């Protein structure tokens, strides 16, 4: 009884407060009295009545309070205002019953709409999180990234060196704070199995800058990113739950990372996400050791900053330009040509996927249209069977508006059922979608069930219900109600046929648009994959090493280190070849410089003569699997004091020595006096990605061109990951303080360079197949229905001597005609629309004839297949039975 009392009290909260204050106790007493009197199942009835009473009259009493004009509705018998709601309730009940009467049709409609609404919801949730919703940080518009700019090399977003970052953060006034970041790997040992995790190394203002507060403990204090104080770690929520059992006592505990003890000082809240890393471990970024100044030559860091209130992006840019110029003056050798460039962080994050999301959104809207057309067709077919029902309703006084509303309510109910099922599909689809979206703006299940997405889905349901329902509804009520009531009333099939053919045409046109879009991305992807990378990617491990400039001053020390490392690695039995390169292939890391070609006349129309320098060790070309086309590779004998040599790539050879061999010719950098002799030509290697053009590249031996950061490539015939400990051991033996960055197999590097393309292609292919299936089902449905309507006619023709095959041909011909018209419209439309896809295509034009032709053929084939079944059925009609009918 006590539980009932509190439950009823809770229920009474639906009543307006004043009513509750005045009469609440008495209402409760009255309810408890009836409950006490009731026994067994009667108690349940009391409860049901009480709930409905409170819902109806409690909420009604709220309306009494604000709506003075409706006040009388509390006791006047014939409520004037309630009519609409009452009939709506009637319509709803009727709609649900109507669905139950035709379960198969209703199921098909609901499923069709579920697929379309689910796809729309999933893609919209991505569009919402990435493009509409602000980033999940406080005041995200004031967040920026600061890059190193090398205007002469055409590079605006180079990684930043430690020294530059420190100088910027000390002098720049435009920012309230600035933080550097890089991603490393950490071996977590001790608690549980040893495991490798990505770890973000961040300078101490990082969390404060993004205004991410810890859930437990604290984040880094100023000064904790200095050598000696840096053995502290902040845990992400995920790793804290998985590896540390969500234990709050983890704070203060020591964990082993890369063999060193780190004290856990904080845990981040669930859902904390960061712009360029998915790391779950955060350690202070130590920018320099005590005995050496920060490096200006090793560029490894991303830099985030927050604009001071009132400072615009432009102001920050001009201030950073000035600081860049000052640094250039202070360090003429190291900073020459290096400036800095400020970009908006939200744009950095969402920019790369924006166009793809727009294309995907267009694709799912098309799917919704196709689904609506299918549903319209189905309902039109159903409408034929309901003409009598509608006529009877009209005859006993239902107005057209009333009938129309009833049909639309039926559609809305099915659409909402479809939307509910669609939400479940969306949860699944969004997982597929999310993988390539930036971690900070990645939709998940919780996004699907957030208010804006639910509202969007509801709106989709209403729109879909209206779109699909309005034609059939109009069709049903348009007719003279007397007509269907007459015995053998003729159905107005001619009008219906034209309408339905129009729908087939629209459906085929929309589907062909989607297929062309998917086909183009598929062909692009194939083209990309078929591009030669210029290297081999299998059985190769890569990792990056940065030498601190202070300890490896001059080319001598660095060259010695590289030679030693190369020799040690090559001596390992598991390693077949090992070599280093300043800029690894397929990663987008690059820089370029002006060069002078000896004896080359530069015409007025020629662009600037530039080449992208690639500094490599002597065995790199072999280790990476690149090919020497002519001449020779680098040799251990190419040392600082010997002849200065260079290797050019195919593109450079063709561009700067057209029709001649560059071997033996000389080249120098614009800003250097040293001439280098070309000793070889190397096959083009893709550095920006398989889909990026190759530029003139000038390979230089690391012995003759000092460089401080190199990516090493190790070739093996076994598992490349097994080389990691070997590489770590040798590096540690040469220099105990040198961490390995970006440890990946070359296959991972290659896959990563095409993964976004693959993602776009997969999603579009998935949507195109969905559209094709829906369209095929739609065409089949319409043709089957038209054949069934024409059974008597076909019967007459067969009796009069028409051949069954000619009947079949006619049906096939009609279907093919509609599909053909739709195809022509669709392909024509694609010529206009696909221009918007140009930026995400590669190697083919949006008007690619092969794509258009194969879409035409395959769509026609599917359409004919869908028509063939009803056509064959028409051929087999028994004339006697048909005439009797």
């Amino acid at each position, binding site marked *: 009884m006590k539980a009932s009392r509190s439950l009823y009290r809770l229920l009474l909260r639906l*009543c307006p407060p004043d009513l509750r204050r005045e009469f609440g106790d008495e209402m409760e007493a009255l309810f408890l009295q009836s409950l006490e009197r009731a026994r067994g199942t009667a108690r349940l009835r009391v409860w049901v009545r009480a709930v409905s*009473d409170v819902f109806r009259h409690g909420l009604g009493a709220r309306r009494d309070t604000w709506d003075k004009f409706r006040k*009388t509705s509390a006791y006047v018998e014939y409520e004037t205002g309630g009519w609409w709601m009452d009939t709506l309730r009637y319509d709803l009940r009727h709609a649900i019953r109507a669905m139950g009467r035709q379960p198969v049709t209703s199921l098909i409609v609901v499923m069709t709409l579920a697929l379309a609404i689910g796809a729309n919801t999933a893609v919209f949730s991505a569009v919402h999180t990435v493009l509409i919703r602000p980033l999940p940080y406080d005041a995200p518009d004031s967040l920026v990234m600061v890059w190193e700019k090398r205007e002469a090399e055409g590079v605006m977003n180079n990684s930043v060196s430690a020294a530059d970052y420190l100088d910027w953060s000390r002098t720049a006034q435009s920012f309230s704070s600035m933080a550097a970041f890089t991603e490393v790997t950490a071996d977590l040992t001790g608690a549980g199995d040893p495991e490798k995790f990505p770890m973000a190394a961040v300078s101490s203002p990082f969390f404060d800058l993004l205004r991410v507060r810890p859930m437990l403990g604290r984040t880094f204090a100023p000064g904790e990113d200095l050598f000696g104080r840096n053995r502290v770690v902040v845990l992400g929520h995920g790793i804290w739950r998985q590896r540390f059992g969500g234990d709050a006592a983890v704070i203060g505990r020591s964990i082993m990372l890369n063999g060193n003890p780190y004290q856990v000082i904080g845990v981040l809240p669930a859902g904390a996400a960061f712009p360029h890393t998915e790391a779950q471990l955060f350690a202070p970024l130590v920018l320099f050791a005590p005995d050496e100044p920060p490096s200006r030559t090793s560029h490894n860091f991303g830099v985030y900053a927050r604009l001071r209130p009132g400072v615009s992006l432009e102001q920050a840019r001009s201030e950073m330009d000035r600081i860049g110029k000052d640094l250039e003056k202070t360090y003429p050798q190291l900073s020459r040509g290096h400036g800095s460039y400020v970009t908006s962080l939200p744009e950095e994050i969402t920019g790369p996927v924006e166009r793809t999301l727009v294309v995907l959104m267009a694709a799912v809207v098309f799917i919704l249209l196709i689904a609506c057309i299918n549903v319209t067709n189905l309902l039109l077919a159903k409408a034929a069977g309901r003409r009598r029902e509608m006529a009877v309703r009209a005859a006993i006084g239902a107005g057209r508006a009333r009938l129309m509303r009833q049909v639309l309510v039926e559609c809305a109910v099915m659409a909402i059922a479809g939307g509910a099922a669609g939400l479940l599909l969306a949860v699944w689809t969004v997982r597929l979608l999310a993988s390539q979206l930036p971690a900070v703006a990645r939709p998940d299940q919780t996004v699907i069930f957030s208010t804006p997405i639910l509202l969007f889905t509801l709106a989709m349901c209403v729109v879909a219900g209206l779109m699909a329902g309005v034609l059939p509804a109009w069709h049903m009520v348009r007719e003279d109600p007397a007509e269907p009531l007459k015995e053998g009333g003729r159905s107005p099939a001619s009008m219906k046929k034209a309408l339905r053919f129009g729908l087939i045409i629209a459906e085929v046109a929309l589907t062909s648009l989607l297929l062309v879009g998917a086909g183009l991305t598929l062909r692009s992807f194939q083209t990309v994959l078929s591009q030669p990378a210029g290297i081999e990617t299998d059985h190769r491990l890569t990792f990056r090493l940065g030498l601190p400039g202070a300890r490896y001053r001059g080319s001598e020390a660095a060259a010695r280190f590289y030679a030693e490392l190369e020799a040690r690695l090559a001596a390992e039995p598991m390693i077949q070849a090992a070599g280093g390169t300043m800029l690894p292939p397929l990663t987008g890391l690059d820089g370029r410089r002006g060069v002078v070609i000896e004896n080359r006349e530069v015409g007025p129309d020629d662009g600037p003569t530039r080449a992208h320098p690639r500094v490599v060790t002597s065995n790199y070309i072999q280790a990476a699997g690149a090919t020497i086309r002519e001449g020779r590779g680098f040799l251990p004998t190419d040392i600082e004091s010997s002849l200065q040599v260079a290797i050019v790539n195919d593109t450079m050879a063709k561009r700067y020595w057209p029709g001649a061999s560059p071997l033996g010719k000389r080249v120098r950098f614009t800003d250097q006096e040293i001439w280098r002799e070309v000793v070889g030509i190397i096959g083009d290697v893709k550095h920006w990605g398989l889909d990026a053009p190759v530029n003139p590249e000038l390979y230089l031996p690391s012995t003759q061109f000092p460089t401080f950061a190199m990516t090493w490539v190790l070739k093996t015939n076994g598992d490349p990951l097994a080389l990691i400990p070997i590489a770590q051991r040798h590096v540690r033996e040469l220099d105990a303080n040198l961490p390995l960055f970006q440890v990946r197999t070359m296959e991972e590097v290659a896959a990563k360079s095409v993964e976004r393309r693959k993602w776009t292609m997969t999603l579009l292919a998935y949507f195109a197949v969905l559209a094709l299936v829906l369209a095929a089902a739609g065409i089949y449905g319409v043709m089957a229905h038209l054949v069934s309507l024409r059974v008597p006619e076909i019967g007459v023709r067969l009796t009069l001597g028409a051949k069954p095959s000619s009947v079949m041909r006619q049906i096939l011909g009609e279907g093919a005609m509609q599909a053909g018209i739709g195809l022509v419209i669709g392909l024509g439309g694609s010529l206009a629309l696909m221009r918007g896809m140009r930026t995400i295509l590669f190697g083919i034009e949006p008007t690619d004839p092969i794509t258009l032709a194969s879409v035409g053929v395959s769509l026609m084939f599917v359409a004919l297949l869908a028509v063939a079944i009803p056509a064959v059925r028409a051929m087999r009609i028994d004339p006697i039975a048909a005439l009797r009918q």
Partner: protein
Amino acid sequence: MTQDRARFDRFLPLKPFVLDVLLELADGKKHGWALIRDLQQRDGGDRILPTNFYRTLRALRDDGLIEEARGDANEDGVERRQYFSLSTLGAKVARAEVKRLEALVVDPRVRRLVKAR
């Protein structure tokens, strides 16, 4: 008179339940509980829904069809109870509704119908 008529015409026709409440109060002032008890006795069973009943009571009071009345001090010493009585307007509305029902009953068509049984 016409003005007065317009004033209570807008309450008509009354829900049977509302008419019941007004008729009960025509016997004299009553508090909520007594009203419910009497209504239940007339009606048999507990068909009265709490929220509906008190919502109606409040609306009737707000519209001036019934009034709050002072209770008898000696009836229930401790418990403060809210008494209601029929207002002049309420009485007029109730009378108009009864007349409307009467007119319906004396309709010759109704007589024919009743006779036919």
